[in-house]
């Protein structure tokens, strides 16, 4: 089963890369772009048919490795 995870920076945490992307977009005539936040996307293929179990496992992975909860939030989709 394939589980997808999005990891993003928490609100209020400085995102210099997002800021640089936003400024570039502004310079490319997308002048109405007010903010860009950059994150990470994971596709995790787990050998498990029970969706609840698979998601619970992926949640563990998020907490232990995929996200650093000091600055990041994760969303399992």
């Amino acid at each position: 089963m394939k589980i997808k995870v999005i990891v993003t920076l928490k609100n209020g945490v400085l995102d210099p890369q997002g800021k640089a992307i936003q400024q570039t977009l502004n310079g490319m005539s997308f002048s109405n772009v007010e903010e860009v936040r950059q994150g990470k996307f994971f596709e995790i293929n787990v050998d498990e048919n029970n969706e609840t179990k698979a998601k619970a496992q992926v949640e563990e992975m998020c907490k232990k490795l995929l996200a650093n909860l000091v600055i990041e939030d994760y969303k399992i989709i």
Partner: protein
Amino acid sequence: MKSSVIIFPGSNCDRDMDVALKKFGFKNKMVWHNDQSIPKSDLIVLPGGFSYGDYLRCGSIASKSKIIKSVIDFANSGGLVLGICNGFQILTETGLLPGILQHNKYLNFICKNVFIKVKNKNNKYFKNIKKEILELHIAHNEGNFFCNEKELKILEDNNQIAVTYCDSDGLENDENNPNGTIKNIAGIFNKSKNVLGMMPHPERMIDKYLSGEDGSLFFENLLGNLK
């Protein structure tokens, strides 16, 4: 005194650290990340570099490597663990130190000499050190220390801030903050002050003709405090 330097795939300051430790009298051993145990040591060093290519987050993969359990056990039993640069990043990812090192504020790789101020001498690393302000070298892309306000208060209340960026007179302000780090923090301790993580590289400042000798002060002093 015995020391061990852990080598991860992508470490690149491991041999400089080995040279520095031996120069000042440590009997140093190099330990591969896939080893199960660490030889008996008075000091364990996690060196600088780009462990695992900085994949995922700097230090995150190294913080789950086989040898790390021994490092954590050693630290929890009071042993001295020093993390320089990438080593500092690894220490925050293991949870031995709070916070995280983020991208430098202006996204540039910074490679230059800086001045740092010793904020707490009541520990094995800086007790008796002859200078308050040291000139050391930094070379990093992710040295922007961040933690939430609650954690920052704990760091301040427990005197866990080890060194801060400043000018040659010791003035700490935004101008002397190379990477956007909060409170000019360049290095921090754990609560019991046996674990130290810092971005500046003392091992690059051990020769008066090539660099400067403030790194020598650091190592001589550390060795003296351990004897």
